[in-house]
């Protein structure tokens, strides 16, 4: 069940908010895409490191989560619109009452969770109020 490869494969993206950009139409992609939905085969996909700033589009505080999620509840999740214009889902580290729609946030590097009994720890981006 536990597989390091599946985390290692996305390591660069998760650690450094490294996504992609289509140099044909200028669209940004995080999570990264290797095919631009707009330009399809005419697009040229290049790596792009996101600035890591954005704002909260919507959010929730999770009070009940499956154990294998390996998170202490409550924790707060949000869909964040990065300043480059693309959206991602991530955890926002703050008090539940602190978050609001439109709030500015910035990315930080944190432990995302661990998998299996052996506890393979994987890291990635979370956000904090900016």
């Amino acid at each position, binding site marked *: 069940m536990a597989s390091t490869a*599946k985390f290692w494969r*996305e390591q660069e993206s998760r650690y450094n908010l490294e996504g992609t950009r289509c140099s044909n139409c200028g669209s940004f992609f995080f*999570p990264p895409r290797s095919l631009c939905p707009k330009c399809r085969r005419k697009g040229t996909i290049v790596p792009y490191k996101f600035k890591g700033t954005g704002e909260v*589009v*919507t*959010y*929730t*505080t*999770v*009070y*009940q*989560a*499956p*154990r*294998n*999620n390996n*998170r202490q509840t409550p*924790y707060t*999740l*949000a*869909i964040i619109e990065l300043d480059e214009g693309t*959206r*991602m*889902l*991530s*955890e926002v580290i703050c008090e*539940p009452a602190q978050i609001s*729609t439109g709030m500015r946030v910035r990315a930080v590097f944190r432990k*995302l*969770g661990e998998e299996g009994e052996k506890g393979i720890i*994987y890291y*990635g981006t979370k956000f904090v109020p900016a």
Partner: protein
Amino acid sequence: MREVAIIGVGTTKFGELWEKSFRDIAVEAGLKAIEDAGIGGEEIEALYGGNMSAGRFVEQEHVGALIADYAGLAGFHIPATRVEAACASGGLALHLAVLSVASGWYNTVIAAGVEKMTDVESDVADDLLASSVDRKWEAIYGATLPSLFAQMARIHMGRYHTTSEQMAKVAVKNHANAVHNPYAQYRSKMTLENVLSSPLVADPLHVLDCSSIADGAAAVVLCAAEKARKYTDSPVYVKASAQASDTISLHDRRDITTMDATVFAVKKAYQMASLDPSHIDLAEVHDSYTIAEIIAIEDLRFFKKGEGGIATEEGETEIGGRIPINPSGGLKACGHPLGATGVRQVVEIAQQLRGEAGKRQVPNAELGLTHNIGGTGGTAVVHIFSR
């Protein structure tokens, strides 16, 4: 393309069926449908079985052949296909079954949906639900299925002034309907206060805003419409069968409060049937969460975007209201055995159109719609039926 009719339906009771296995419930539903159709098993030419995750719930793949085998059909060597689109697996199995008859390839087929969820701990089942969304870019960051619907609810509340009470009303209505449904998991009424005082799962959704883990199976027998009267006096005709997809992740959607997969599927369905929403007498929609029913009745164009909450509050979706929604009790009160749900919805509509729904009967039901989604709306399947 030729017209297709449903000539038999069957369902197990939904709930924690400790004493029954995956294959037991699949066969039970299938035999009931075949018996209801009054045909012999040897007349079935193909089987489509909707199932999301037997591999992880009961460690069994290859369930198409398994179901056909235990239904006693192995000797006929019929094509038996397992169909998967997360919680829309059942609706999709029916869609493919309809296409197979409409095309003329087969004359008589069976579509089933089955899920056995309670052989694993509820924790494991809850985690499996997250495999219906983007495991890599949603679930790994902590997203659970209810947490994503909660984020839809948040925007819906902000933009359209939908309230927690209106969402709770969906649960209250559906539980009231299920009192009269012998197949439902929960058959007791609940109050707004019960829902609103239940613990939060993901703010603003409470435990009682969420559908439950259950075991269950349902099946329908289909044949070419011109032959339907040979088997039954009350065939149910398939007027439309449509499927659409959308981004797997909620964050990539054009609008977080609209499921474009539903919008596109229902647009095709209304065109196919030459109908508009005002013609539909009742619908079974995918209320995996209470906010999901509110979004669904808007996307299906029964109500304008943003008016699903107030319409629910005012009783327009109750039996006896303008457009009864989920007279069976929906996923909320029937329970939601993932792959079974989409077919269970069709069983309900067929019973309603035949006038066999007992105390939950919608008066003068002539046209019914089913709406089944996968994940947060990455897949939607819509069917329209007439009597």
